C-alpha cells in the first residue's frame, strides 16, 4: 500500500508531485479521510507500506502514527516513511518507529550548499547528517538517502563529494536520480524561458557512470536503474516494476490491479490490468471521500501492446531484467547486443554463454543499456509488437 501525504513546508522548483505548501490546517481532516479510505479499500493485509509525499515528516507525530497504524499489514512487512532532514525530529522518528515503520527514506539530494540552493532545498548537509544519526538512534537500521545529480550548477567534483559524503554516511540504500525538467514546474518554466539553465544529457550520463563506480566500490549493488542497496532492496518499489498489485490511498495516489491476478510477474504480458488514480488536489480528494466515500478520479484499462510496453519498460529497470521465452529472445534486435546494451542470462540468474540453447532466459540491461533504457524499450516493443 502507498499512502500519500501531499503537504510540504515549501515546494521545490523541480517537483511535479502532488505536493502543496501552506495547507497545514487541512492536515487533521486529510488524515481522517485517508484513514477512512484505508478502511474502505484494503481487503487483505499489506506486505509493504510506503508513506510518501510531499513530506510525511511535516505531519504532527501523532497524525503520522495514526496513518501508519491504520494500515492492516502482515507480520514483518516493510514500512517506509519519507522524511526531509529538517523535519526529521526525534519526536516524528520515534512516533513512526512506534507505529511500525521499519525504514526511513531521507531526501539528501546533495552535500553541497550551492546545489541544494539551486534545488530549492532548505537544509544544509550537517542537518542531514544529524537527521541520519537521530534515525539510527531511534532504531532504524534500514535507511535510504535520495540524491539528485546533473543540476547545471554542479561540477564533476561536486558530485564526487556528494557520493563520498553518502558513502561516509553509510545508509544501507541509495537512490540517485538525474535532475529531470518537468514542463509544469517552476523550474521547468524557468528553463523553458531561458531564465535558468537546464541539465545536459551527456553530463548526466557521465555523472551516472561516476555514481555506478563509486557506489559499487563502496559495496552497494545496483538493483534498479536509480537504486542501490547494500543487502536489502526496497521491496515496495520492486512491486511496481514487476507489475504486482498495489493500492494507493490519499490525494493523487495510483492503484493497480493486474488482470491475470498473478502477483507479481504476469505470465501473459499483454493481459495488463486496471490502473486508477485518486483526485489530485487534497480538497477535492477530501470532498470526494466525504460525499461518496470513494476518491477515484479516473482510470485506464491497460492491455495488448500497451501492457507489453509497460511490462518491458518497468521490468527492464531492474538489473534482473525480464524473463523471455526462447522464441522471444530470437526477436530481440541484434543491434541491442552489438551496441552492448542488453545481455541474456540463464533463467536462474547465472550468465550463460549460449543463450540460444536455452529454453528460456532473462534479458537484462547492461550498465550502458541502463543509461539508454528508453531506446532499448522502444526497439524491443516495436520488435515484439510485430511478432
Amino acid at each position, binding site marked *: 500500500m502507498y499512502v500519500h501525504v501531499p503537504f510540504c513546508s515549501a515546494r521545490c522548483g523541480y517537483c511535479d508531485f502532488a505536493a502543496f505548501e501552506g495547507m497545514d490546517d487541512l492536515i487533521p481532516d486529510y488524515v481522517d479521510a485517508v484513514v477512512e479510505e484505508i478502511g474502505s479499500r484494503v481487503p487483505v493485509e499489506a506486505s509493504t507500506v510506503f508513506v510518501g509525499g510531499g513530506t510525511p515528516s511535516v505531519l504532527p507525530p501523532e497524525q503520522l502514527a495514526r496513518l501508519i497504524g491504520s494500515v492492516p499489514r502482515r507480520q514483518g512487512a516493510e514500512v517506509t516513511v519519507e522524511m526531509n532532514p529538517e523535519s526529521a525530529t526525534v519526536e516524528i522518528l520515534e512516533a513512526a518507529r512506534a507505529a511500525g515503520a521499519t525504514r526511513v527514506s531521507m531526501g539528501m539530494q546533495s552535500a553541497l550548499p550551492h546545489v541544494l540552493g539551486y534545488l530549492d532545498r532548505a537544509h544544509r548537509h550537517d542537518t542531514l547528517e544529524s537527521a541520519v544519526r537521530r534515525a539510527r538512534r531511534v532504531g532504524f537500521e534500514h535507511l535510504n538517502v535520495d540524491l539528485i545529480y546533473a543540476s547545471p550548477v554542479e561540477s564533476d567534483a561536486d558530485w564526487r563529494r556528494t557520493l563520498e559524503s553518502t558513502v561516509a554516511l553509510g545508509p544501507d540504500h541509495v537512490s540517485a536520480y538525474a535532475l529531470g525538467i518537468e514542463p509544469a514546474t517552476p523550474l521547468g518554466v524557468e528553463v523553458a524561458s531561458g531564465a535558468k539553465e537546464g541539465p545536459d544529457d*551527456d553530463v548526466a550520463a557521465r555523472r551516472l557512470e561516476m555514481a555506478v563506480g563509486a557506489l559499487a566500490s563502496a559495496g552497494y549493488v545496483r538493483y534498479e536503474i536509480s537504486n542501490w542497496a547494500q543487502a536489502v532492496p526496497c521491496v515496495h518499489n520492486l512491486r*511496481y516494476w514487476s507489475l504486482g498489485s498495489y493500492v494507493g490511498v490519499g490525494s493523487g495516489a*495510483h*492503484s493497480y490491479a493486474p488482470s491475470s491476478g498473478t502477483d507479481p510477474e504476469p505470465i501473459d504480458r499483454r493481459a495488463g490490468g486496471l490502473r486508477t488514480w485518486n483526485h489530485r488536489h487534497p480538497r477535492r480528494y477530501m470532498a470526494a471521500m466525504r460525499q461518496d466515500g470513494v476518491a477515484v478520479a479516473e482510470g485506464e484499462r491497460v492491455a495488448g501492446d*500497451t501492457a507489453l510496453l509497460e511490462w518491458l519498460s518497468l521490468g527492464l529497470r531492474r538489473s534482473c531484467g525480464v524473463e523471455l521465452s526462447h522464441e522471444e529472445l530470437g526477436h530481440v534486435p541484434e543491434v541491442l547486443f552489438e*551496441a552492448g546494451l542488453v545481455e541474456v542470462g540463464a533463467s536462474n540468474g547465472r550468465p550463460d554463454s549460449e543463450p540460444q540453447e536455452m529454453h528460456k532466459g532473462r534479458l537484462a540491461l547492461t550498465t550502458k543499456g541502463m543509461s*539508454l533504457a*528508453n*531506446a532499448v524499450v522502444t526497439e524491443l516493443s516495436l520488435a515484439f509488437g510485430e511478432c
Partner: protein
Amino acid sequence: MTQLETIRNFSIIAHIDHGKSTLADRFLQMSGAVPEREMREQFLDSMDLERERGITIKAQTVRIHHRGTDGTVYHLNLIDTPGHVDFGYEVSRSLYACEGALLLVDAAQGIEAQTLANALLAVEADLELVPVINKIDLPSAEPERVAEEVESLIGLPAEDCLMISAKTGEGVDELLAAIIERVPSPKGDVRAPLRALVFDSHYDQYRGVVTNVRIMDGTLGTGDSLVLMASKTEVSADEVGVYTPLPRSVATLGPGEVGYLVPGLKSVAEAKVGDTVTTRARGADEPLPGYKEPHPVVFCGMYPAEGQDYSELRDALERLHVNDASFTWEPETSGALGFGFRVGFLGLLHMEIIRERLEREYEVTIVATAPTVEYQVLTAGGDQLVIDNPSLLEPGFEEIREPYVEATFLLPAEYLGTVLELCQGRRGVQTKLDYVSEDRVELDYHMPLAEIITDFFDVLKSRTRGYASFDYEPLGYRPGDLARVDILLNGEPVDAFSSIVPKDRAYRYGRRMVEKLRELIPRQLFDVPIQAAQGGRIIARETVKARRKDVLAKCYGGDVTRKRKLLEKQKEGKKRMRSIGRVEVPQEAFISALRIDRD
C-alpha cells in the same frame, strides 16, 4: 457555326497579379455571360492550386458575345494560357489557336521577364499584339513610363497602348473595340477536311477526357467519327460545345471557332496537347505543324513515406497521369528508400505541382529526393548514356554534358550587383546587360539548368525582395567539369543523397552536406560517421556522437501512465524514421539536406 468575320480569337499575356483574371471577369460581366450572382471570384482559375498560387496551370477558354459599334454581334474567344515557363509548349499551342494577344502590363510594376518571354513567343507565332496597361487607377501608376518600356522591350509603339483599369472598368469598352478592330478574324476553309488543334486536354470524372480545340479547317459535329493524328487514336465526338463560360453543347463547330470536344477517352495521354483531330472518312492528309511530345527536364525520385504502400503511390501516379500526361514516371529502386519511382517534369514548378496534387488530391505522403537534370554521358567505352539519377553516374567517363538555359532577368537597377553576384556564383556567363529605362535593367545569362532547379528562385526572390523577375529557355547541352559526390552513413553510401556537382565545388558541397546531415540525424545507439566522398576519396567527415543517456530517472507507481505515454511518443517518432542500414534518418532529412544554400 459562326461567320468567320465575326470571330476574334485572342489570349492574354500577363505576369502574375497584373490583372488577367480581373480583366477576364470584367469581360464576362460586360457580356452578361454569367449572371452576377454566379460570378465566382476569378472565374477562369478553377483548380484550388491555381487560386492559391495565383497562377494558371491549365488553359481555359471562354466565349464572349459583344455588340460592336457597327451593330454586329462579335464572338470573342478568350483563350487563357498557362503563364509559366515550365509550360512553354502549352503556351505556344494556345497561342497558335489565336490570331491576337493582349499584352497586359501593370501600370505600376512594368514588364516582367515572363511576360517578355511569352510576348516574344506570340510575335513568333505571328499574332497581333495589343498592348494594354492596366491598373491606371493606382496612385503609384506610371502608365507613360510603362508604355515606353513596352516600346523599348517589345517594339510596339507607345501610343498604341490602351490605358485601362480592369477593376473600375475604365477603358474596357475601348479595349473590346480595339480587339474587334486590331485582331484579325480567323481564316479557314469550311469545305476542306477537318483539322482541329488540341490546345488543352483535361480529365473530367464524369465525361472522361475533355479536349479544348480550335477548328482550323472543316467542321466538327457531334457524333462524327474522328482520329487523333499524332496518337493514331480513333474516337467519336460524344459531345461538341462551347464555353459560355459554362460548357454548352452545340451541333457543329466551324472554321475559326474554339470549343470543346469530348472524345470518350480514359486518359489524356491519348489526346495530347498539339495533336490534330480529323475525320476518319475523308480526313486531312497532313496534321497541323508543331506537334511535340512533352519532354521532361527535371527529375526526382518519389518514394512512399514509411508505412505507406508502394502500390498506393503507383495508383496515385497512374490516376494523376490520366489528368496530366506531361510528366513521366518509371519504377526505380533505391538502397536507402526502397521501391519508388523516377519522375520527370517539365520544370521545377511542374514538379511542385505534381507533388502537391499527389499529396492533396490522392492523399499519399511522399519522400522526394533532390531534383536533378538529365545528363549526357560518354563512357570510356564510347557508349552514350542518359543519366537522370546521380547515383547511376559511374566514374571514369570520357565526357559529361549538362543542359544549359538562357536566363533572362528584368530588375530594378539597385539590385543589379546582387543578381550579378548570384549568377556568377551559379556558373552563369553574361550575354546581355541593357538599361530598358533609367532604373530598370534587362540581364541575360547562359547558365546550367542544374544551377536553377534547387533554390535559385528562392534566393533570387529574397535577395531582390521579390522585385527581380526571371525566365529561362533551353539552350541545349554543353560539356561540364562535373563529378559525383556520394554521402556515406556509417560507411555505407546512400544513393538518395548522391549528387552531381562541379568538380571545383565538390569539397565545399560535401562539407556542407555532412554538416547539415549531422544536424538533421538524431543521435543513435552508436557513433554514426557521415562522410562525403568523391571518386572513392573521402573529402569531408562529421560524426553524430552516440546517445549516452535516454532514460527516465524515476518510475514509481504514480508515474507509470505518464512515462508510458512518453515512450509511446518516442515509439511513434521512431516509426517515422527511415532506416538506412542501421542508421535512422528522419524523412525531413531527404528534403532539408537538399536545400543547402550554396552561397
